[in-house]
């Protein structure tokens, strides 16, 4: 039970999950603006749709450290603000509000109702709120239902009652909605099945006779109890319910959606039923029934009864459903339903949630793949689509009827305005450096069906280029300047060349101007708008002060000396002479520049200077930073009493190449702090805090930018001051808008020699830079996303991929179940007898592939992610074969030539697992791997789920057997075989002659291959059943892996067992060693264990930043990217362990889950520290920060530095 370990890892999320389990809409800020709140994994995210730009902006993301099961929005009557109810695995119901002023979620109520965890009888699976916000009901899959009454007290605060029970034993719940009943007693509708009888009857007859019922539960507000008000049998296949508006808006009731039908039901109305139209097409099976998987109801403003539903089938087709009501004499709807109407609307990706915004947008939270944001062009009111009405269909679900059909077509009513990147589902991931950049890139395969993609991820910010123009010469520097203090935009661009200066004016066009007063015959060192309306040009021979009336005052540098460095702000100028002297000027009251008598002689040559901006309400910046070539930075005072007096010194590892004093937002003080940014000749960037009172330098954080000297510039991005740092590539230092942490991220842009802020009418917050002979103007639009994605579309759901051993190419294997293969499709299209519609083929990216039960479509794709950025070559499988595994293997018998080996299965059925045969296909690489030639295939009993190159031969896991194959002329030749695992081999890893075999259910087994005896001998296995999904060898003894329940673990082989296995000639001994408890002779020991919530699909030992230490990168199915960083010293472990402990108490998870229990969901957490929780320290209020800092005996800054250091050292 020891929770301590000799090994400790720090777990961090690099990219949070992007899968959306549920999305809700509401006015969470209390204003008219609607926001979308999504639940993805353990995160609650608030998005702000921007209707004017058609974009969605993430405003807040909060990790609740618990599994969010359901969320719902509600509003108390008379209020204008929506609250959020969350049910999670904490066994508690949580009500939170969004506080826009502080941009955070605030918990209002936390009510415990049951055990924690996601269990069968613990409510939380379903959640519904009365439309008037008076009550909510949360139900479990079976039996339990709890009703909470929501109200407000005399202080207008939200109150929640104790729960009212509405349990019913042996009853399964399929769906739950709240009925719209106006202000009558709240009613909740549920689809229930009573399995009581079928439980006693193994023959299955009772199961056949089970009826599904629609049940109304009424909460009597007067008596404060819940009654089962009404129940009636509905279609057996029904599984989804939708609320129909009631009260004055409509007839109330529900839509019950089952296979091939939608039925309107209400206790006091007739049933009305329509069939779901099926797709018409040559490749469509006319017998296949659709069912509704998602949908949304929308009320239109104005007339009563003006509402419609958009319901989606599993193909992605949206249908518009309207309800026609009986009208009275005045032509007003009476609330009595007359008929139900359905017609095809458009096709969008299959959604987990749909949200219609009042501003006329549709948010589609896709269940797999990118989320989409559509704008409504029209509502499909007057198009030529056939409308089907309920009059034509019997209400009894068992009665026969003629199915109806429609023709899918390109979208007419919706137009896509934004697609939001989502890596969900992420099937496999690899880190490689294919572009020879400083840092490696992350390559992954994501998505399902025709919307699958190959994605390359790169650390960086997206840059939008505005202008790129070539210049007559190679400039060394560029500035922009305003003309007067009051100007909002820059007027001049000044370019400095080695022997001259060029001034360009910014207007409608950018053109050269000559009468500006600037000295054009010398290079420039600095340009500044001074005082009210003056301009300053510093050149090597002096300082030119240009007044508004074009009068020029010139200060000349002393004889035989020149200016080597200069710094300016709107009131001060400081220059350094070649003799090491510093001359300081300040602006007089009359606007002229006055030289101070005090001069300061520095010990070495000055390399750079920096004056900060003049603080608001002051006349001067109090400090001057001076960098000298003796690798020091000095802070000089500019106070009139102590002008140019030394305040502090900082020693550096190399000479400073750039300095910048700048005030930036700071999370530790809560406001803004003065920083000194230092760039070194060695390419290192330092950021240190400059004390505004004493001039002391404290809290230095450093980062390596690249091998070239660093240059620093102050720029403005998205309304905040940021630092542009240039080395071998450009970087931006800024404060993250959501987490408020300081970030340093490379820009996705070529290396620049110089940069400056740029502001004009067209581009208010841009930057201007020099790249070789080019002048570039660019801007940064988005600071929230620091991983850049590039997608290449793939054909089918990708399963695995491998890299070519030398070339920058990847080979993906793709397969889709229940999808027709291209050959079958072609046959259907060509067969004239089966044509049952037009043969127009719609793009599969939007409409999906034609489906057929039991069919497989599968292919191998050659992907070039670097140069051509597309799929180069595709090989389709025929005969209902689908690829399941892939490897590149170099065969010793073929002079180490590398082949691509793909394992396939024929006629596979997912559950229960079966297939008619398996094959191993071998392909030869042609044209540097860009093409593949099929050599031969070998039939095996079962699909080989794992393949690996091993000592010049092929290692294959076929069922329980581990086999070694060599390449023959006609097929693969089996050389050795052993049954090593109890169920099914799903993964193989190797080092030397040790093989790590992962079983689908029984964790990993270590196997040694004895060459002399030609035997495969398992020698160590595990004590716990882990449903291994991925594994990797961390070192020769240690395996890291993940399982299907979302755990990450590290296992180590005992030293003795490891040694024994590798002993020369120990084969016979190992083979006859006594089994231990019917397993291998030895057991693996658990080193670390952690619950990550997402299912790890890939884990790899790698490093992500230049010169960073090795860490483990894992990728989760929902699109999570996380890393595990090993701790080097015990001291750090103790520090973070204590910090984590304090954080658990001070920042208890929002949804009420106990953090320690959450991370110990299946197995107690061991040897792992949750970095995501530790990073929340920066978001705590100052008093709590200080309290924790006091407990830890450190300063707040020190703690924040440690937290940010551990991340920046190994990740982004």
């Amino acid at each position, binding site marked *: 039970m020891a929770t301590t370990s000799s090994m400790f890892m720090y777990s961090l999320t690099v990219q949070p999950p992007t899968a959306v389990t549920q999305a809700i809409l509401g006015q969470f800020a209390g204003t008219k603006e609607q926001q979308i709140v999504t639940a993805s994994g353990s995160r609650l995210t608030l998005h702000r749709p921007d209707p004017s730009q058609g974009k969605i902006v993430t405003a807040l993301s909060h990790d609740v450290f618990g599994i969010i099961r359901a969320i719902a929005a509600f509003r108390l009557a008379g209020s204008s603000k929506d609250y959020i109810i969350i049910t999670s695995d904490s066994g508690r119901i949580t009500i939170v509000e969004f506080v826009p002023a502080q941009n955070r979620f605030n918990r209002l109520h936390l009510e415990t109702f049951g055990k924690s965890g996601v269990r*069968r009888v613990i409510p939380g699976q379903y959640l519904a709120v009365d439309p008037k916000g008076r009550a909510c009901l949360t139900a479990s899959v079976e039996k339990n239902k709890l009703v909470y009454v929501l109200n407000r007290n005399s202080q207008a605060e939200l109150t929640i009652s104790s729960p009212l029970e509405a349990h019913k034993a042996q009853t399964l719940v399929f769906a739950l909605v709240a009925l719209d009943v106006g202000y009558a007693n709240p009613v909740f509708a549920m689809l229930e099945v009573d399995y009581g009888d079928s439980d006693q009857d*193994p023959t299955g007859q009772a199961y056949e006779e089970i009826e599904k019922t629609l049940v109304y539960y009424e909460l009597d507000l007067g008596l404060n109890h819940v009654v089962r008000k009404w129940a009636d049998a509905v279609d057996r296949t029904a599984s989804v319910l939708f609320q129909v508006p009631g009260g004055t808006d409509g007839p109330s009731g529900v839509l019950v959606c089952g296979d091939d039908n939608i039925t309107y039901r209400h206790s006091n109305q007739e049933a009305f039923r329509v069939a779901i139209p099926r797709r018409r097409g040559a490749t469509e099976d006319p017998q296949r029934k659709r069912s509704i998987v998602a949908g949304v109801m929308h009320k239109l403003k104005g007339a009563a009864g003006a509402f419609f539903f958009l319901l989606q089938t599993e193909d992605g087709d949206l249908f518009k459903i309207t309800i026609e009501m009986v009208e009275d004499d005045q032509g007003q709807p009476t609330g009595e339903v007359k008929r139900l109407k359905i017609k095809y609307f458009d096709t969008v990706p299959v959604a987990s949630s749909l949200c219609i915004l009042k501003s006329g947008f549709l948010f589609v939270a896709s269940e797999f793949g990118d989320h989409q944001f559509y704008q409504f062009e029209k509502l499909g009111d007057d198009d030529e689509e056939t409308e089907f009405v309920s009059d034509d269909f019997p209400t009894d679900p068992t009665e026969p009827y003629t199915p109806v059909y429609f023709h899918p077509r390109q979208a007419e009513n919706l137009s896509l305005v934004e697609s939001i990147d989502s890596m969900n589902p992420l099937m496999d991931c690899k880190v490689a450096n294919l572009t020879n950049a400083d840092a490696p890139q992350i390559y992954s395969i994501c998505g399902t069906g025709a919307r699958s993609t190959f994605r390359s991820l790169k650390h960086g910010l997206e840059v939008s280029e505005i202008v790129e123009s070539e210049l007559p010469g190679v400039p060394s520097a560029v500035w922009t300047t305003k003309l007067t203090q009051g100007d909002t935009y820059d007027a001049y661009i000044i370019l400095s060349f080695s022997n001259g200066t060029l001034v360009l004016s910014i207007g409608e066009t950018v053109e050269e101007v000559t009468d500006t007063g600037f000295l054009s015959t010398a290079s420039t060192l600095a340009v500044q708008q001074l005082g009210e309306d003056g301009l300053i040009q510093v050149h090597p021979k002096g300082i030119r002060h240009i007044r508004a009336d074009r009068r020029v005052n010139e200060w000349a540098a002393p004889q035989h000396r020149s200016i080597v460095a200069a710094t300016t702000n709107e009131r001060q100028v400081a220059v350094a002479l070649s003799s090491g002297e510093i001359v300081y000027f300040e602006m007089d009251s009359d606007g002229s520049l006055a030289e101070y008598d005090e001069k300061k002689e520095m010990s070495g040559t000055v390399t750079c200077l920096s004056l900060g901006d003049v603080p608001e309400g002051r006349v001067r910046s109090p400090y001057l930073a001076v960098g000298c070539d003796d690798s020091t930075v000095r802070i000089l005072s500019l106070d009139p009493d102590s002008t140019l007096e030394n305040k502090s010194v900082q020693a550096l590892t190399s000479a400073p190449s750039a300095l910048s004093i700048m005030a930036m937002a700071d999370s530790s003080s809560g406001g803004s702090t003065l920083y000194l940014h230092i760039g070194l000749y060695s390419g290192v960037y330092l950021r240190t805090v400059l004390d505004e009172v004493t001039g002391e330098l404290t809290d230095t954080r450093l980062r390596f930018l690249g091998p070239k000297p660093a240059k620093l510039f102050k720029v403005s991005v998205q309304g905040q001051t940021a630092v542009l740092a240039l080395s071998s590539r450009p970087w931006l230092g800024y404060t993250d808008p959501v987490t408020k942490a300081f970030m340093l991220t490379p820009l996705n842009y070529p290396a620049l020699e110089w940069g400056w802020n740029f502001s004009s009418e067209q581009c208010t917050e841009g930057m201007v830079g020099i790249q070789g002979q080019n002048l570039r103007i660019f801007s940064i639009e988005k600071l929230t996303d620091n991983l850049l994605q590039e997608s290449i579309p793939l054909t089918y759901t990708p399963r695995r991929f491998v890299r070519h051993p030398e070339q920058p190419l990847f080979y993906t294997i793709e397969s889709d179940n229940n999808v027709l293969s291209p050959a079958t499709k072609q046959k259907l299209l060509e067969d004239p007898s089966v044509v049952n519609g037009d043969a127009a083929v719609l793009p599969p990216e939007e409409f999906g592939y034609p489906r057929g039960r039991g069919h497989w479509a599968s292919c191998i794709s050659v992907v070039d992610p670097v140069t051509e950025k597309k799929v180069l070559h595709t090989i389709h499988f025929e005969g209902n074969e689908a690829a399941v595994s892939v490897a590149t293997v170099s065969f010793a018998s073929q002079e180490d030539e590398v082949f691509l080996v793909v394992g396939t299965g024929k006629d596979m059925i997912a559950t229960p697992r079966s297939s008619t045969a398996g094959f191993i296909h071998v392909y030869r690489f042609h044209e540097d791997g860009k093409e593949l030639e099929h050599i031969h295939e070998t039939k095996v009993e079962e699909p080989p789920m794992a393949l690996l190159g091993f000592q010049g031969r092929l290692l294959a896991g076929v069922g329980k057997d581990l086999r070694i194959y060599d390449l023959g002329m006609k097929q693969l030749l089996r050389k050795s075989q052993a049954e090593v695992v109890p169920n099914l081999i799903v993964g193989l890893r190797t080092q030397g002659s040790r093989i790590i075999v992962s079983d689908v259910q029984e964790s990993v087994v270590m196997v040694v291959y004895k060459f002399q005896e030609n035997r495969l001998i398992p020698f160590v296995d595990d004590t716990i059943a882990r449903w291994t999904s991925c594994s990797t060898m961390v070192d020769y003894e240690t395996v890291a892996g993940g399982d299907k329940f979302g755990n990450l673990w590290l296992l180590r082989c005992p030293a003795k067992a490891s040694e024994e296995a590798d002993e020369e000639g120990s084969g016979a001994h190992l083979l006859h060693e006594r089994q231990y408890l019917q397993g291998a002779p030895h057991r693996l020991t658990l080193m670390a264990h952690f619950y990550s919530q997402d299912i790890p699909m890939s884990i790899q030992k790698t490093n992500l930043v230049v010169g960073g230490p090795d860490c483990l990168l894992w990728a989760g199915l929902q699109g999570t990217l996380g890393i595990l960083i090993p701790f080097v010293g015990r001291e750090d472990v103790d520090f973070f362990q204590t910090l984590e402990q304090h954080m658990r108490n001070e920042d208890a998870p929002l949804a009420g889950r106990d953090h320690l229990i959450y991370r110990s969901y299946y197995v107690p957490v061991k040897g792992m520290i949750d970095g995501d929780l530790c990073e929340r320290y920066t978001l705590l209020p100052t008093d709590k920060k200080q309290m924790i800092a006091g407990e830890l005996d450190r300063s707040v800054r020190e703690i924040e530095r440690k937290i940010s250091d551990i991340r920046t050292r190994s990740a982004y």
Partner: protein
Amino acid sequence: MADKLRAQQQLEQLQTRFVGTGHADTTRFEWSSNIQRDSFASYVGHPPLLSYMAIGMGECREKVRGAMIEVG
């Protein structure tokens, strides 16, 4: 006799409070279908697990969810 009665009462209490508590005559079918229902409720309740299975089966999540509760 009193002891036996009490034991009986206690068992009944457990059976009403905790779904799936067995009794002396629990059949193999009852036991296994109870276990199955526990498992399926867990698959439906953990979103990544449901996605994982839906991808494996080539179906959409909502259909797999419905089918899993149905089997239970």
